[in-house]
Every structure is written in structure tokens, then in C-alpha cells.
């Protein structure tokens, strides 16, 4: 993107569960249309303010890259702002700015999305511009030569000069043997130095096809109008075959792994991760929901167990957190980490971390703990409805990872049905040392 990324699925992900709300705030109904060429449209009308957000979601991301060409999906995203047949480089953003809007994009392992927040009256024009650049991108060598340097600076800023990010990047890479989540979305620097405009053009031909497109519009619009506009813009792109996506099954860990990243840093950090199942609606609702609830009990709210036990009571870290994303494709790297102060040791933190997890597994959450976790998770869904951007993002991401935004209510139901025993069961099966990969950020000792 131009400036927002989902590059680091591990670090500081907010815990839990971007979805919607039940009972108290039923979602506005989704309206959808599927076009003959494979383009999909999903609209959520909200007439409370004369604004709208348009998001174009692509079923292409870091997972679709081949070895030696990591970072390509994200590089491509940058090139979308570099001009098309009808729009000079930079012209797209200039026009959006003139409308009083703003635009940007983001890339993850699973998807790429382009978005504009604009006055609602401009939605038709924006969809026309999006379809035009999608179908007629310039991809000039001289623009690529400049942009790849911008992206190298982005990597230096986000990863190379941030020891915590650098450690998490390495930890993901060590954790997985096969799954493409082992490669960073921003790309390894050595790949960024050898990518070419030909790589970008080939990526365009292969992935930027109508069957990979989901258009999401949330705001003060009329579904019938938007449908007509999409029909005469994205709906007119020539149909092309869609190849199945690379989604390998990660082999089950056969024992714990450990790594140390020795980097210039002020203080150590210890993180533990392991592959866990994501949500497959109708197949593992209770299991995925129980993992989400367990993670909320450990790391959500003021009463978060990791914080209370390890930071406040035992004083083995000055901050601790955990995270789980049930809405990705294929697998998720569940994680927990602790930030260690000058007198706190990685060994003591690690021991306390497992003791806390094991305690929850053995005793189970008490009724109040369980009810509070569920109530917070539902409340978070309600609070999320306050932002058009987050609403559109939830809808788009659920669509492109294959879950479907219509399943939002099912997820809330699954959360509601989780019992204390379910929490114990998933902790016992998935969150165990034998499956774990442990990483330590060790501050470099200056000679």
C-alpha cells in the first residue's frame, strides 16, 4: 500500500474477532450480485451520513507468489497507483482528493484491497476509475524503477529497523515448513532487489482477472444504482479462467522448535507461536470459537489472564499479549509474547506463560470469566459498526478468504455456544509446548 499494511500477522494484532454484532445491533442486511464474468458485488446500505466507502478486493496476496519473488503482490499494489490508459501516474489519487476523498490500499498473505472514502454522490465515478485502472494498467519500467526503491525504504522502516518486527518475521519463517505464511508480505530484501517490471506484468496477467474481484460498498448508496454501475464497469471485463489458489496443508509439528534473533535492541522479547485451525463454517464452528474465547480470556480486556498473572502478580514481564485470527485461509499462527524489563528473564517469563495457559486448561474458566469474555466479544462487534471502513473490511475479507460475510451471525452464535469444557479442550489439543515455536529477541551486546 500505499501506507497501510497487514504485513505482520503476528505483532500487535488486536486480539480477536472482527465481525459483527448480534441481538443488540443486528447488521444491516447485505445485498449482493454475481456477474457473469465472475465479479461479485456486496453492498451494505447505511444512510446515516452522506458518505460511502468503496473497496475493491482481490483474491491475490503474498501466498500467490513463487519462491524468489516474495513481495510481488505488494509491489503490484503500489503499481496500481502509477497510471493507466486514461489516468496519468498519480492522477487517480489526485481525482479522489479533489472529491474530498482519500484512497489507499493494503496487501496481506490472503488478499489485496484498494479503497476510497468519498462523498456518497461520487461512488459511480470511483467505480468507473477503479475498473479502468484494473483493466488498463500502464506498468511502465521507469515508474517501477522508482517505486521499487520506495518499497525497499518501506521494508527498512517497518522491518529492518524494528527489532521486534524483524524477530516476528523470522519466527513465522521458522514456524512453518510449507505454508506461504512463512514468507513476509513485504518480501525479503534480496528478492526486492531482483524483481523486475516483467515479473509485475506477468503477475498482472495471471491474477488481475474478473473472477478474483469482489466489490464492496458500504454507506449512503442505493443497491440498485451500484449494481447498474458495476454492471457497466467491472461487469464488462472479459471473463477469464480462475486457477485454484495455493493453500497447502502444513505438516503437524513433531516437536518444539526454538530460535534466537540477536539484534540491536534495548530489551528482550520472548514470543511463542503455533499453527492452529481457522474457522471452516459448518465444520469446526465450536473449535474455532473456543480458540477465540480462550484467547480473549488470556489476553482481552482489563482482566486478561496473562496480564494479571504474569505482569501484575508475578512481575515476569512488563507487558504480555496473545492473538488468534480465525478468519484467514487454511491455518493461523496463534501467538503470545512478553516484553521483558531489565531484571526479567526469558526463562522465567516462558515458565510463567505456560503455567498460566496450563492453569486455564486444567481448571477451565469460571462462569463469570466465560460470560464476560463473550460479552466483550459481542460488544466489540457492535463498536466495530461505528466505522464504515472496518465494516467494509470485515465484509470484504470474509468474502475473499472463502468464509462469506453472510456467516457473520453464525460466528456470533458459535461464540455464544462455547462452554468452559470447549475452552479446555482446544487448549489441550492445540496450545501445547510440543507444537510450539519459541523465539527470543536477544539484544546485541556491544563490544
Amino acid at each position, binding site marked *: 500500500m*500505499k*501506507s497501510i499494511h497487514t504485513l505482520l500477522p503476528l505483532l500487535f494484532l488486536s486480539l480477536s474477532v472482527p465481525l459483527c454484532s448480534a441481538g*443488540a*445491533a443486528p447488521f444491516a442486511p447485505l445485498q449482493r450480485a454475481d456477474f457473469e464474468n465472475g465479479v461479485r458485488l456486496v453492498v451494505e446500505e447505511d444512510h446515516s*451520513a*452522506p*458518505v460511502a466507502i468503496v473497496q475493491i478486493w482481490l483474491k491475490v496476496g503474498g501466498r500467490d507468489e513463487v519462491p524468489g519473488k516474495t513481495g510481488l503482490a505488494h509491489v503490484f499494489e503500489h503499481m496500481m*497507483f502509477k497510471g493507466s490508459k486514461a489516468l496519468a501516474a*498519480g492522477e487517480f*489519487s*489526485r481525482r479522489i*482528493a*479533489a*472529491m*474530498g*476523498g*482519500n484512497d489507499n490500499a493494503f496487501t496481506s498473505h490472503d488478499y489485496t484491497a484498494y479503497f476510497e*472514502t468519498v*462523498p*456518497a*454522490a461520487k461512488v459511480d465515478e470511483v467505480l468507473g476509475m477503479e475498473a479502468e485502472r484494473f483493466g488498463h494498467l500502464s506498468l511502465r519500467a521507469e515508474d517501477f*524503477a*522508482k*517505486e521499487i*526503491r*520506495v*518499497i525497499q*525504504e*518501506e521494508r*527498512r*522502516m517497518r522491518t*529492518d*529497523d*524494528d*527489532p*521486534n518486527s524483524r524477530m516476528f518475521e523470522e519466527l513465522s519463517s521458522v514456524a512453518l515448513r510449507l505454508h506461504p505464511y512463512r514468507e513476509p508480505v513485504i518480501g525479503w530484501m534480496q528478492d526486492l532487489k531482483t524483481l523486475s517490471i516483467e515479473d509485475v506484468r506477468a503477475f498482472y496477467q495471471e491474477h488481475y482477472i474478473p473472477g478474483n474481484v469482489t466489490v464492496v460498498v458500504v454507506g449512503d448508496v442505493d443497491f440498485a444504482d451500484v449494481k447498474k454501475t458495476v454492471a457497466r464497469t467491472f461487469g464488462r471485463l472479459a471473463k477469464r479462467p480462475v486457477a485454484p489458489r495455493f493453500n497447502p496443508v502444513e505438516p503437524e509439528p513433531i516437536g518444539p522448535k526454538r530460535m534466537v534473533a540477536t539484534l*540491536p535492541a*534495548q*530489551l528482550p522479547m520472548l514470543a511463542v507461536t503455533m499453527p492452529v485451525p481457522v474457522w471452516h463454517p459448518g465444520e469446526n464452528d465450536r473449535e474455532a470459537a473456543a480458540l477465540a474465547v480462550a484467547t480473549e480470556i488470556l489476553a482481552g*480486556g*482489563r*482482566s486478561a489472564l496473562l496480564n*494479571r498473572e504474569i*505482569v*501484575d502478580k508475578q*512481575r515476569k514481564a*512488563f507487558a504480555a499479549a496473545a492473538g488468534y485470527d480465525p478468519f484467514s485461509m487454511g491455518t493461523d499462527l496463534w501467538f503470545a509474547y512478553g*516484553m*521483558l*524489563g*531489565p531484571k526479567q528473564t526469558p526463562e522465567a517469563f516462558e515458565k510463567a506463560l505456560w503455567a498460566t495457559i496450563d492453569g486455564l486448561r486444567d481448571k477451565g474458566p469460571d462462569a*463469570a470469566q466465560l460470560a*464476560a469474555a463473550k*460479552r*466483550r466479544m459481542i*460488544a*466489540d462487534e*457492535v*463498536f466495530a459498526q*461505528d466505522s464504515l471502513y472496518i465494516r467494509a473490511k470485515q465484509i470484504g475479507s470474509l468474502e475473499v478468504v472463502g468464509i462469506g460475510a453472510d456467516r457473520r451471525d453464525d460466528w456470533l452464535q458459535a461464540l455464544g455456544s462455547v462452554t468452559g469444557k470447549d475452552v479446555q479442550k482446544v487448549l489441550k489439543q492445540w496450545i501445547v509446548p510440543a507444537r510450539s515455536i519459541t523465539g527470543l529477541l536477544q539484544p546485541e551486546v556491544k563490544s
Partner: protein
Amino acid sequence: MSGLMRIFALVVFFSAATPAMAMPPVEQVRLDNGLRVLLMQSHNVPMVSMSLNVPAGSWLDPSGKGGTASLLSAMLTDHTARHDYITWADRLDAAAIRLGSDASRDSLSLSLTVLKDALPEGVQAFAEAALLPGWDAKRFAVLQSDSVAGAQKSLEEPGVRAAQETAALLYGEHGYNHRPDGDLASLQRIRLADLQAMYAAQFKPQGAVLAVSGDVTMDELLALIGPALKGWKGAPAKTFRDIPAPATVSGEVRNINMPTRQMTVQLARLGPSRFDDAFFADMLLNHILGGGGFSSRLMNEVREQRGLVYGVYSYFAPLAVSGPFVISLQTRADQAGKALQVVHDVMRGMHDGKIDKQELQAAKDNLTGGFAHRLDSNAKRVGLLSMIGYYDLPLDYLQAWEANINGVTLSAVQAEAKRFLDPDQWNSIQAGPTDGGDAQ
């Protein structure tokens, strides 16, 4: 309830850029104790957000004890006189009450986000945090120790190092001379008594504002906050009007050695205050310079034309008195000189009057066209109402905003460019490798 407070002024209607748009009115009530309450109703999501802003900003941190206001804000939400930190956390979590706090240079804020059906409990908890501090010495020691460790950890971040240095350089002995978070040394010097003294002197309803947005009416709100804030009274020892004007510093250079690949460059000087006569011209000037994202000159020249950076931007902090005006970028260390030269050329060009009508119109179009987005969530509305209430801006501030932007002339922006953009008057702060980097 109605005996406790009188309605002071009510309702500003507003029509924005789009004729169809009707902004919810701003409702205002002043309680008998002096607290100003501002509300924008919004009933599409069953939630309420609010923020209480009091004049206990970091500008009042005792000398050498930067972070006092910040630690005070953390203590107020950690526990109360009635609940220890464990029962307090359990109580808030059980009702999904989100209670937050923050200290900025000019004010301290407590914030609440809550489901509509938990509003009575939420307001009760909010008032308990504000008015019944627990002052538990053991908890103070824990919070202080964790914030000291956090401050050491943050020294890994070039942006934090540069911002610390910038504040120290621009403000000398002035209360703005440190980041509100404090730093590794200053946080260790703070005592619980410092927090108590700041609370006793500054945490008062007069000069404070409660900004609210969400699924609630003024009557419902007053019926809850009246009893909850009963007994709270008085005026603070100091208000934002007591903050002295800082002295000018120019042409200084500071280098911070860090083992990074990039150089983080900050150019800094004093900028306009919130009350500057040319505030809207300054806003447009900054938008054109580096505040307008991809349409700004700095982004175009440094990134789009030359590929030297991922991010480059400018901003000024609109505070009670001159806040910092900053231009910031990061680039591979060996390119820092080149990037800086481009920034200087951009500043010099604007300083010398090279700004045209179309460019000004584009900035106006972007700001006015995007006005509805500045108000499109409860959190954003609370932020704007807090600002209007705290700085005592006119209640029609939002109504007049678009006309104020559109009324700025090209010559006014050129005059502000002359006033602010002479590169020789700026200071330079750089964090990165002193050996020029290894070009990796």
C-alpha cells in the same frame, strides 16, 4: 436533575458541502459546578462514547518529572478508593465497559465507550474513576516500573528518539519540553505525591469539558451524570490560558546515534497556536506542503519523483500556544543529505511565493469535500467536541469550518509561507548511523 444545572446554550444546525447533509446539532449544557457538557446524538449504533477533558496536561509535569500527567491518567483508571485493581477490572470487563485515559500536552482525558444498555453502569464507573482515586502505593510502584521499562523499550524506535530530542530542543524550560509519556530518567523520579498534587490542583470541573456522542439524549445523559458527579466542584489552579508563549529556537542541529539502516530526519520549528489569526491559512499551507498525503508537494517531490522515501509528511500541533511544526522523513542513511536538499528546495519555493491558485483550490476541495468524514464515527465526533469545548471555541465552529477554509486567499497562504517556511529558521534533528550507513 434539572435543578442541578441550567441549560446554557443549545443547538447549532449545520449544513455542509453536500446540501443533502444535515449534521446532528451540537447540544450544550453547563452544569452548576461549571462543567461543560457537549453532545451530538447518533442513534444508528447502540453505543455511547464520551471523553472528560481536564486541564492536567503534561505541560504541568513538575520539572524533571516528565510523564507525571500520564502516570496520573493510568492510576485513575487502574483502581479506585472503592475497588482494588482486580475487582475493578472484573467489574468493567463483565459489562464490556471500555475505560481509557490519556495525557496530552494541554489536557488529561478519561474516555468511555460502552453499549447503550450498559450506559448507567458505564457512567457510574467513569465517575468513580474520575472522583474517587485509590492512590494504592503498591499499584503505583507497578505502573511506574512498567512505564519505565516501556520507556526503555521505546528507545529502539527512531521516531521516539527524534521526538524526544525535538521537544527538548524547541522548548528549553517550557512545559512542552518533553513527550507526554515521559522518558526513562524522568519517569523514575516521579512519586505518588506528585500525582496527588496534580490531581488536587487541576482535576476540577471548571474549565473541563465532557464531550459525548452516541445513542443517548441530553435528558438521559444529564439524569445519569448529575448524580454521578455530585459533589465535584471547584476551579483548577491553572488553565490552558496560563501556558506561557515559548521562545524561538532556530538553526540548531542535533544528531542521535542509532544502529539503523535508515536516517530519521525531523525538521522542526514553532508553529501556529490553536488561536492564531491565520489558523485556516496555516492549515491549507500545511496541506499543500506535506499534510495532504499523496497530493502534497513533499510526497510528490521526495517520494513520487525520486523514490527516496516511503513516507514524508508535515504537521503542526494546534495547541494552546505555539506547538511544534514538524517535517519528518526516513530514508536509507546515505541518501539523507539528498532528501533533505529536496525538502529545502520545496520549502524555499513556497517561502518565495511559488504557490498557485489551482493548488490552493485543490487543497480546499479536499478539505471541504472530506468534512463529512471528520464526523462519521462517535470517536471522531467526541474528539471534535472535546477540542471545541476545551479550548472554548465558538459553538458554531463546525458550522463555520467550510466557510473559513473557503475564505482563505492565495495571498494569505503566501504570507504564511513567508512567515513559516524559511529553511534557515528550522532546526534539524537526525536519528541514525553516524557512519553514513552501509547502503543495505
